[in-house]
């Protein structure tokens, strides 16, 4: 940035998008939107410093409702696009927002590889265990037995576990939130944005229209914040074990964090003390050009 604008302290309101969310009243996604707006304001970030990247889905409409730069890309591709943004301009803060279908279904491969690369992104998954925007089909995180429009006799496929997957694939900050607990969400988002590496927060964000099983009430009776359990986020085994619990107790909070792994952009020698590649002047220098020609002769 060549221009220095004086920044006044911002509030959550300053991160409202151009339109109000058109989610169904009661949709879990409102809570994450609000928590995110509050957190970025608290962190003193400016709208132009953030890029919010999403795929397609109800939840993926997030960038339109959030007051920062945004990219509403293809279904399943948000992480790939976001990696491109980050690697081309490491100065930006990147939030990636989307749904369980978007992230763990069609986008699953990018999830795996973004995790192992430890790209410095904050990935917020509004996991409603259903395909919302397409009006209610089974998702890769739907529970066994769940009846949906595409599984009218009950789902027979076991769901993915985003937490254990993320940990095993190399994500360095792995948490779970719940739309019913904005306070915890804010803490988790703050931690994620501050974490230099790939931070995933899987958020139970009930779809009040299509998922009759995993409702607010379902979660309210079950969620147990890890903060209260003395869980050590350095211990992957305990993290995985707790992440697998899915009964009377379902844990939320920070499962795992490894601050020792450098994020991808920090490992790229061409970025050492260098501006983002998007700010480097395009033309080759004479030295560069001459060397190239020389090698051809």
């Amino acid at each position, binding site marked *: 940035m060549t221009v220095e604008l004086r920044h006044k302290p911002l509030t959550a309101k300053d991160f409202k998008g151009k339109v109000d969310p058109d989610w169904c009243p009661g949709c879990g996604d409102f809570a994450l939107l609000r928590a995110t707006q509050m957190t970025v304001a608290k962190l003193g970030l400016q709208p132009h410093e953030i890029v919010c*990247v999403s795929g397609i889905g109800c939840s993926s409409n997030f960038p339109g409702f959030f007051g920062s730069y945004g990219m*509403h890309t293809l279904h399943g591709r948000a992480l790939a696009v976001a990696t491109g943004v980050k690697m081309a301009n490491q100065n930006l803060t990147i939030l990636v927002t989307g749904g369980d279908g978007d992230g763990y279904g069609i986008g699953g491969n990018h999830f795996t590889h973004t995790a192992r690369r430890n790209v410095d992104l904050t990935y917020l998954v509004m996991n409603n265990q259903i395909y919302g925007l397409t009006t209610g089909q089974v998702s890769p995180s739907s529970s066994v037995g769940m009846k949906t429009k595409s599984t009218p006799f009950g789902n027979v496929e076991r769901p993915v576990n985003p937490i254990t997957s993320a940990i095993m694939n190399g994500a360095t900050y792995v948490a779970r939130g719940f739309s019913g607990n904005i306070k915890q969400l804010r803490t988790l988002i703050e931690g994620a944005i501050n974490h230099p590496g790939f931070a995933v927060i899987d958020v139970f964000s009930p779809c009040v229209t299509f998922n009759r099983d995993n409702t607010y009430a379902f979660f309210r009776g079950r969620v147990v914040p890890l903060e209260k359990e003395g869980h050590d986020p350095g211990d992957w085994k305990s993290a995985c074990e707790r992440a697998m619990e899915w009964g009377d107790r379902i844990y939320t909070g920070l499962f795992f964090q490894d601050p020792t792994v450098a994020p991808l952009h920090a490992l790229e020698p*061409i970025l050492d003390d*260098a501006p983002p*590649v998007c700010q480097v002047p395009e033309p080759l220098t004479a030295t560069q050009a001459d060397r190239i020609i020389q090698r051809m002769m």
Partner: protein
Amino acid sequence: MNQGFDFSIAIGGAAGQGIATPGNILARTFVRRGLHLYAYNAYQSIIRGGHIFLTMRVSDREVLSHGDQLDLLLCLNQDTMTRHLRHLGPGACAIYNSDTITPGEVADGVQLCGMPIFEMTGDRKNKLAQNTAALGVMVHLLGLDFEILEAALELQFGRKGEAVVSSNVRVARAAYDYSHERFTPLPVPLPHNEEPLAVWTGNEALAMGGAAAGVKFYCAYPMSPSTGVLHWMAKNARELGIMVRQVEDEIGVANMAIGAAHTGVRAMCATSGGGFALMTEAIGSAAMMEIPLVFINVMRAGPSTGVPTKTEQGDLWQALGASQGDFERFIVAPESAEDAFHTIGEVFNLADRYQCPAIVLSDLLISEGTFSVPPQSLDMYPPIERGKLIRDAERNGTNGTYNRYLDTEDGISPRAVPGTPGFVHVVATDEHDEEGILISDEFTDPHKRRQMVEKRARKLSDALTRIPPPEIEGVEDAEVTLVGWGSTWGVIREAMEQIEARGVAVNRIAVKWILPFHADAMSGLLAAAKKILIVENNHSGQFARFLRGETGFSAHGHIRKYDGEPFMPHHIADGVLAHLAGEVPGGVFVPEQEIRV
């Protein structure tokens, strides 16, 4: 054909026998003498074994194809000898290790140059000795001083240490001396021009074109025959400050490149047909978000996995049909390595000006072909025009007033990149209004929808003025007009000389820019032509159908090839004569590939 010096060397062997090394040494030697060359390597999708056949044609004037004949055949195994000896005519020589290879029957006037490698070197173990020895023989046959080879060996093996260099020089020397005593050098010695040339492959040209055009973000997933672009980029990345990433698949590649491009960096990626299929959805999304970047598809013989190491012009319709819906994009098919280099810069400027993706259709023939090029012809500082790009806040605009998709007169909206204060906006693959608000989610409005479709389409209304129209090359009023596109540019030009030599007046139209297409200009040229023959390297006549769709013109005949091997000039010449003689019943002449590679 060529009145001057024109000479073809072929080296055949199995994968793993090290054909590349003598090939490189010869190529360097030739271009340093200012000789032009073109090399085509016919190989298989196999890492060891099989059959590789490198043809290198050298001349004192520009060489545009691997030509029709072989003058010097180096057989690294019996298989090569068995397959190719019969393609040699009078005056040609075959070089081979006589310890292990038996020549077959040979045409009159062919010189057999057997090398008793063990006798020459005293070494039975070094499998690569025959390669170096062959260079010694060749240098003698070509009438070169041994010192030239010595220098070349030094350069090639220097990195491996003195011992390797000197053992190679010893072997080469022995072979040189041996052949000096026994073999007759070729009648015309190798000429020497003042200006040394450079040498590159088409993939290197594409990569360098990107570097010169200011590409600072390149990502890819390996896929033959496009991988050379990745290799060049990876090797040069540090020095050039280019961010190079290998991604988990081509979907990731395309989307990552789009994300990068959105920050304002020039981003590029390359793949081949199957990977391109996976990229198509993203290409449409770039068009909808109005993010400019360049996608290279290096075509190989399809369909599907096809013949990964063979050439074809088979993806024209895939490029035309990439992604759903109507959207703005450029499609261009460069004609040679040198043209590919310049094309990248040109097409980036267009993509940037019109804020849309561009597709470059190269093919194995160009991309893996080795070309000589006069270094001074390469503009390493081409004009870089970024269009209506806002990269800092000096230009006016605030959140309140900035509309990313402003409906301007020319359809092009000022484009701000993330990080710029005061221009915050959201780009979207859903249809959106001028502000970028989704019309599918906010309210669906057929009038706004129509407005936005027309705004985007209007962008390209003057694009043709920035693209050169196709032209007639050659005599006016010719009996036959050859129409080709992309990589057949070179071989058609060489074929024209043969056709003229056979007494037929011929001219041609070489098409490089596919979309947008100069339909009017082309129609004008075609209307004036007597007999139009379309030459293309595919089965169904993809270009012919496209051309008819754009102009209504049906060609009078076709010359096509789809066996994986590229055209040789005489294939086209034969096709023209057959057409003129009325000997092409179905209207499609398909030459028989003689050299069984």
